[in-house]
Structure formats: structure tokens, C-alpha cells
């Protein structure tokens, strides 16, 4: 799309510019040649688009008018850009109070309809060509000023500008060194687009008789003169109308499609080649009778595969943790378990809930047996709806309850999770972060969930609140036997709350172990991860353990073991062959197992 509209725009602009250069030379004379015998004629073979009141050829006049029309638009844009960018950049060099005042003025000016502003500015500047150019220039300034201000304010909020200010860089230098370079691109592009709007605006003013006056003529003036004749010879208006459309649309399209191209982040390959991901041998699926069973789950987006053959099970009433750093694929795994992977993600493998494929379950079954909790409780509740009715929905939609009894159930569930029932009438923003997360959990309890999938449920919360929310989940688990899949980047959170932990790295499960065995983990990654977490009894005399390098992005996971480049135990085997998942670990050179009492894996 953007290439198409950019191409069309470029073609239109090219035609316009060529005509602007050659127009007056080629058709200039014909355009002003009086012919008293053929005034006000319609279409004929001599005059395709008819003649005006002086018998002058309309087609020739249209083509010859290109130069003046484009030139005036250019001047108006120049005025608008100078005024607008200066005004918009002014707050950046003023003190806070001056900045606020100027910003308020800009916001006020933007509210004035552009054409009206242009008309009155033209009136003040004197009607005629000058008035029109100044008018359109002045009228386009507020929009550019606001754009400049918005962009500049965005950059000024960035930490690097704060850092520069602390290093003693002056306001003007911050503007030229940090702000302008970061906003120049969108600014230049919108100035290009505003060239198109200036052209159309000038044509409008001339059409209204407020612009170019005879004997000069631009497209708008030609339209003005031809307009009364549209009822008799509609074709006489076609020339200038088409010319305005071609040039105006051309410039706007070029400016806007370039701006879009610049604003758009590189698009991820949509229909790229599906990467062929070796599945390897995954953990054995859970025991039969598992509540949740995931087999060879793979999630891919075009050519990128963030989840690569994940298998695990959750027994009824069990709390299982998935731990991994950002980019490990843990959150997508959670979404896939919930059947919520967004388009165009492709999910392969199988997810069974109570032995039945997720896809075969009805909406109501899924909506009542599976609960999801996400990271940011503010975003997870609809800001426009009261909390109670948001919860009650599940009751009316899936359980066939009346609104009243659904609401009563909602209040009961809120109280069950420690939210005072009266808060059911509150809007989400009136609750604290912890309360909101409780409300989200209460929402999941509206049905009779067998499994709660909680993706970083406490990451956005304070430590003391985090603890209480985790306690709540544990209490629900203990009281109702609701199983949970707890996903977190925090290995301590997972280990303190789960019986079993799955460690993910670069889209795969690399180790599965009881959470009390984390300190004696066998996979080098798990070990290093555990060692790098500072705890309340870390030895302060020693440097903290770290893992060199970084986890590979989903798009460039290497062949073999993905952890090999960061691993001290890696051999050439590790970089070529994918380690199979055997007896709880996917590693060619695992650490020795330290036997634990009463536990035997094979």
C-alpha cells in the first residue's frame, strides 16, 4: 500500500513540477490571447475545454497557471513552516512558565478552523495574492507548531535529555543536539504534506475571490471565474479542477506515505518462510489424568519461532512454575495454553485440558474452567466499566445467571479475594494495584476454574503486595484444589510458591525439577541463574555471579544448544547437536545429580 500510494503521489508530483517549469513557456502566449469572437464557449475541437469571457483557451490557461499555483503554495508553506516550527520549538528554550504559556497559545490556535484563520489573516494582510499567501501560511502554522511541540515534548521527556541537562548542557544546545535531530524526519515529511494542503487552500481562497486577482491567474482563480458557468458548460471547470486535484493530492500522498514509512517500525516478516524447528525430545507429558497436558507446543510468527516444542503437564491441584528471562517464550506459552495467541501467530502441537483438546471445548466451558491473570492489573480491567459488572459478565454469559444473581456472585467472589464487596461499584482506577489484581483473580473465580494461568501476576506490584497476592493464590489452591501455572522471571517467586519448576531458555524447556532442588540444578543455565540472583544471604565479599553474553533473540536462535555460547561447559558437540530432554534436563554435559532423599527420576 505505502509503495503504491507513494508511487502514485510521486508520479502526480513529477507531472506537476514539469508543468510548472515548462507551462508558461509553452502555453503562456495562448493562455492570454484574446479572441472576442469565441468568448464563453463550451467544448469544441479548437478549444477542448472551452474558452473564458475573453475567448482565451481554458486548457492553455490551466496548464500555464501551474507555475504560479505551485510557486504560491511553496511560499505559503515556507511561511507556515518558519512560523510553525519556531513557535513549536520556542517552549523548548523558554523556562517552564513561558513554555506552558506558549503551549497553551498553540493549543488555542489549533482549535481555529484552518480556512477561517486563512480568510481572516488574508483580510488583515490585504486581499489579493499577498493576502492569500500570508493567510494560508499563517493558517498552516498552528498545526505545524503543535506537531513540533508534541514531538519535542516527547523527546524532552526522555531520560537522555535529563541526563544532558544534568551534564550542564544548555537549553539551546539540548534543542539542537538532542531534540531537533530526533524530530527532524517527521517534521520535514509533514511540511511536504502541508505543501499539498497549501495548494488546495490557496485554490480555495482564489475560488472564493479572496486570492489571486486578474490579470494574474492561478487554478483557484480559473475555478472562480468558471464556477457560474458550471450549470451550462460543466466541462469548462474540468481543467483547473483536475489540475488542483492532481497537484494537491500528489504532494499530500507523497508527504503522508513517506511519513508513514518513516513512522513504521520494520515490519516483521508476515508470510516469511516457516522456520523448521527441530523439536528434540521434550519432557515426558504429565501422568495420565493430568489436568493440563501440553505436547510439542510450537508458536511461530512468520519466520520467527519464539516457542519451540514445549511439553509439560499439570496435575489436578498442582502449582507449577515456569521461569525464564525476557525472550524465553514463557509468556507466549501461557497465551497458547489459554488459546489466546494473537494472529498471525501459528500454534502447533496440542494442549489438552482435562484430556480434551482446547479447541473442542465450548466457550462456556473454557470461560468457567480456565482463568487467566496478566501482569498489569491496571490494563487488565476495562477502565470504562465498573468492577462488579465486569465480573458479573461471566455469570450472565456463561452460567445463565440473572444480572442480579450474577452481581451477587461477583460481590461474593470479590470478598473471597479480599476486596470489600462495596468496591464492586468502583471504577478500576479507584482501586489500588493490589486490589485490582485481586479483582482480576476474583473474575477468574466466577466460574469454577480448575486451572489458573498467571503470567507475571505480581511483577507490577510492590513486594509486600506481591506477597499478599501470592498468598491469595496459594490459599485458593489449598481451599479449592485449583491448579495453577505460575509464570515469572523471578526464580525466587517461582521456587517459593510452586512444587515443580520448568526452566525456559530461548523457547525451550531446558530443565524440569522440584523447586526445592533448584540449588542443585543440573543444567548449567539453571545453576548460573540461581547463582546470579542476589538474596538476603548472598556473600557480600564476593562479586556477584553473572552469565556472560545474552539470550539469543527468537529470530536468531543458533543450532545445537542455545545456551552453548554462554556456557563454560560447552563443547563442540553443544554447538551442533540439540541436546535431548532426558531425565529432567536438556544438556549434553549436565552437572552431576546430587541425590535427594526420597526422589528418584528414573
Amino acid at each position, binding site marked *: 500500500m505505502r509503495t503504491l500510494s507513494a508511487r502514485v503521489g510521486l508520479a502526480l508530483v513529477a507531472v506537476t513540477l514539469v508543468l510548472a517549469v515548462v507551462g508558461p513557456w509553452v502555453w503562456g502566449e495562448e493562455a492570454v490571447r484574446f479572441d472576442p469572437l469565441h468568448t464563453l464557449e463550451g467544448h469544441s475541437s479548437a478549444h477542448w475545454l472551452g474558452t473564458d469571457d475573453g475567448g482565451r483557451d481554458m486548457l492553455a490557461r490551466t496548464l500555464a497557471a501551474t507555475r504560479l499555483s505551485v510557486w504560491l503554495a511553496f511560499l505559503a508553506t515556507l511561511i507556515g513552516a518558519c512560523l510553525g516550527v519556531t513557535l513549536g520549538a520556542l517552549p523548548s528554550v523558554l523556562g517552564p512558565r513561558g513554555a506552558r504559556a506558549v503551549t497553551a497559545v498553540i493549543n488555542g490556535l489549533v482549535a481555529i*478552523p484552518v480556512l477561517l484563520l486563512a480568510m481572516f489573516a488574508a483580510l488583515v494582510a490585504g486581499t489579493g495574492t499577498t493576502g492569500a499567501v500570508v493567510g494560508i501560511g499563517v493558517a498552516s502554522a498552528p498545526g505545524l507548531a503543535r506537531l513540533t511541540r508534541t514531538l519535542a515534548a516527547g523527546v524532552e521527556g526522555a531520560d537522555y535529555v535529563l541526563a544532558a541537562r544534568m551534564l550542564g548542557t544548555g537549553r539551546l544546545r539540548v534543542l539542537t543536539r538532542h531534540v531537533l535531530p530526533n524530530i527532524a524526519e517527521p517534521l520535514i515529511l509533514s511540511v511536504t504534506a502541508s505543501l499539498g494542503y497549501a495548494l*488546495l487552500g490557496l485554490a480555495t481562497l482564489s475560488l472564493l475571490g479572496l486570492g489571486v486577482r486578474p490579470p494574474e491567474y492561478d487554478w483557484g482563480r480559473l*475555478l472562480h471565474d468558471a464556477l457560474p458557468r458550471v450549470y451550462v458548460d460543466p466541462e469548462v471547470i474540468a481543467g483547473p479542477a483536475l489540475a488542483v486535484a492532481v497537484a494537491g*493530492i500528489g504532494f499530500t500522498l507523497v508527504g503522508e506515505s513517506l511519513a508513514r514509512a518513516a513512522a513504521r517500525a520494520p515490519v516483521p516478516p508476515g508470510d516469511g518462510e516457516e522456520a523448521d524447528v527441530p523439536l528434540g525430545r521434550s519432557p515426558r507429558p504429565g501422568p495420565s489424568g493430568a489436568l493440563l497436558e501440553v505436547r510439542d507446543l510450537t508458536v511461530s510468527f512468520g519466520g520467527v519461532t519464539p516457542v519451540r516444542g514445549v511439553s509439560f503437564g499439570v496435575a489436578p491441584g498442582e502449582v507449577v512454575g515456569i521461569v525464564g528471562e525476557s525472550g524465553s517464550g514463557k509468556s507466549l506459552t501461557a497465551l497458547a495454553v489459554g488459546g489466546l495467541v494473537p494472529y498471525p501467530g501459528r500454534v502447533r502441537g496440542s494442549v489438552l485440558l482435562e484430556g480434551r483438546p482446547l479447541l473442542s471445548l465450548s466457550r462456556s466451558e473454557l470461560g468457567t474452567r480456565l482463568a487467566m491473570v496478566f501482569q498489569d492489573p491496571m490494563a487488565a*480491567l476495562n477502565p470504562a466499566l465498573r468492577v462488579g459488572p465486569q465480573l458479573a459478565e461471566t455469570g450472565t454469559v456463561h452460567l445463565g445467571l440473572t444480572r442480579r444473581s450474577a452481581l451477587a456472585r461477583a460481590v461474593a467472589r470479590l470478598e473471597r479475594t479480599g476486596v470489600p464487596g462495596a468496591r464492586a461499584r468502583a471504577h478500576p482506577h479507584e482501586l489500588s494495584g493490589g486490589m485490582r489484581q485481586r479483582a482480576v483473580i476474583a473474575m477468574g473465580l466466577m466460574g469454577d476454574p480448575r486451572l489458573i494461568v498467571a503470567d507475571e501476576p505480581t511483577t507490577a506490584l510492590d513486594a509486600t503486595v506481591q506477597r499478599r497476592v501470592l498468598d491469595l493464590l496459594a490459599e485458593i489452591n489449598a481451599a479449592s484444589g485449583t491448579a495453577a501455572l505460575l509464570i515469572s522471571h523471578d526464580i525466587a517467586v517461582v521456587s517459593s510458591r510452586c512444587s515443580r519448576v520448568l526452566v525456559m531458555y530461548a523457547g525451550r524447556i531446558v530443565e524440569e525439577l522440584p523447586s526445592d532442588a533448584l540449588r542443585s540444578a543440573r543444567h548449567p543455565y539453571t545453576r548460573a541463574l540461581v547463582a546470579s540472583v542476589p538474596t538476603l544471604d548472598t556473600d557480600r565479599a564476593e562479586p556477584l555471579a553473572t552469565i556472560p553474553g545474552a539470550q539469543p533473540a527468537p529470530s536468531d536462535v543458533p543450532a545445537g544448544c542455545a545456551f552453548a555460547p554462554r556456557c563454560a561447559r560447552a563443547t563442540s558437540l553443544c554447538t551442533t547437536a540439540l541436546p535431548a530432554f532426558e531425565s529432567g534436563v536438556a544438556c549434553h554435559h549436565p552437572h552431576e545429580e546430587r541425590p535427594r532423599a526420597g526422589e528418584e527420576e528414573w
Partner: protein
Amino acid sequence: MSRGRRAGRFVLSLGGVVVASFAMLHLIPGDPVRAALGPTAPREAVERRRAELGLDRPLLDQFLAYVGGVFRGDLGESFLSRRPAAEIVADRLPATVQLVVATMLLALAVAVPLGMWVAARTENGRGRRTDLAFTTTTGALSVIPEFLLAVGMVAVLGVTLGWLPVAGKDGAASFVMPVLALAAGPTALLARLVRVETLRELGSDYVRLARAKRLPTHRVYFRHLLPNTLTATLTTGGLLLCSLLGGSVVIEYVFQWPGLGGATVDAIVNKDYALAQAAVLVYGTVSLTVLLAVDVALGLLDPRSALRSRG
């Protein structure tokens, strides 16, 4: 924003409009009376007219007299027809308001459902063809100026086919072309805006959670998305609706609509500064009122801003 601050800003902006309309007459280079009466008018006539208009008095006196007049509903007297400007405005304004309100309603009624529907069809880059058709059509409509559409419609629907009246305001049929021509651009832009906002909301966690709750699709859209999309759209779309006023001037001119726009153009062409002054005042006040109405509507739609205005 609190109610008090909103009211305060409205009053302050109105004051700005009054000052601007007053200043306009005095910013005109040279003598506006001379410009209005023409270079051949005798000097005594110009002086007499200046005295009549009070232009020979000190600036502050003139300003106070002007403000006093505005409060009494006296907007001065047309230079040309010598009719009170307020009377001309009262004659002409209703037709403009009818045109603009009809256009706004049409724009909202088409843009909101269309934008949401397209967003639903093209979420996360699916529905490439719908996307292409929508962006091309709205893109074209948003850059074609209203007067071209108007002239084109007059030529085709009015003159060639003779389906609709080509000019004047006379019954429902006479509204069709002006409203369509005026609505096309803003509708296209608004529909794009609605789509962008809907797409943004579709990516939010509460929609994900509503889907996790397995709510039926229509419930997700109408109950969960619509209020949020509308607030987001109106926040930026208010100015767009306001800009309709500018377009209405051209449309009135092309269709010889008996509104304020035509009168304003005539006033400017004929250098009837008093009437132009009155037009600035009226258009400014109407724009501000539209923006205030949008603000109030937002306050009603968005519980967060309601809370803020209580606080």
C-alpha cells in the same frame, strides 16, 4: 481537567476571540474606512464615517465600547448595507448550523461503525484486502478538497443528471449534496482515527482478558471496546469536527447556501470590516462551543475524567 478549569479556559478563550476580532480591524494596514469607501470617496465622507464608527477615539475607549456592545448583542453595523451586523448573523447563522450539525451527525454515524468494523477485520495485519481498500478510499477522500467534490457533484448529479437541486436551501433534497461534499473528508479522517484507536484498544490487556473470559465477540466489541474507542476518538476528533466550520464556508459558496459563510466571503471581498469582525466573533464562539461540547461529552463517557473533575 476540573470543571472549574474547563469553564475558566472557555471564558479565557472567548476573551481571546473578542480581543482578536477587535484587533483585526486595527491590524489592517492603512485606513480601513478609506479602503472600504474606495480611493475616490471625498475626504470629508471618510472622516465623517470614521467619527460615526468611533475610530477617532482613543484605542482603549474603542475597545471598551466594543466589549460593551458585544455584551449587549450589538456587533456594530455593516459598512455596506448599514444593517446591524447582529441581525445579519441572526439571519444567516441557522442555515450554517443546520448544515454543520447534519454533517457532524453523518460523519459520526458512518465513521465510528466503519472504523471499528475495519479494525476488527484487520487486527494484527490480517485482512490485507480490506485494509488496502479502506486506506485507499479514505486516503483519497481525505485529500480531495470539499469544493472539488462539490463542483463535481453539481456537474454530475445536478446539471448532467438533474437528480438534485444545484443551489439554495429548499427542503431535504437540497441538503444532500452540500452535506455529502462537506462530510466526505472528515468522515474519512474520522474513520481512520476510529480504526487506529480501536486497533490500539484491541491490543490492550482488558480485551485480552475479555477474550480469556470467552465472551461472545459482539460483547467484546460493543460493551468493552466501544466506550473506550469513543473517548479516544473524540479526544483527537473534536478538532476535526470543529474544522467542518471552515469547510462549510466553501460549500455555502458553491451551493449558494444562505448561511453565514457566504455572507462572510462577501464581507471580506467588499471590505465590509464590521461584518467580518462579527463573523470572526461568531465563528470563534461556535468553534469554542463545539470543543466544549466534545469536552463535556468526554467527561460523561470517561469515568476517569469524571473523577478528575470531582476532585
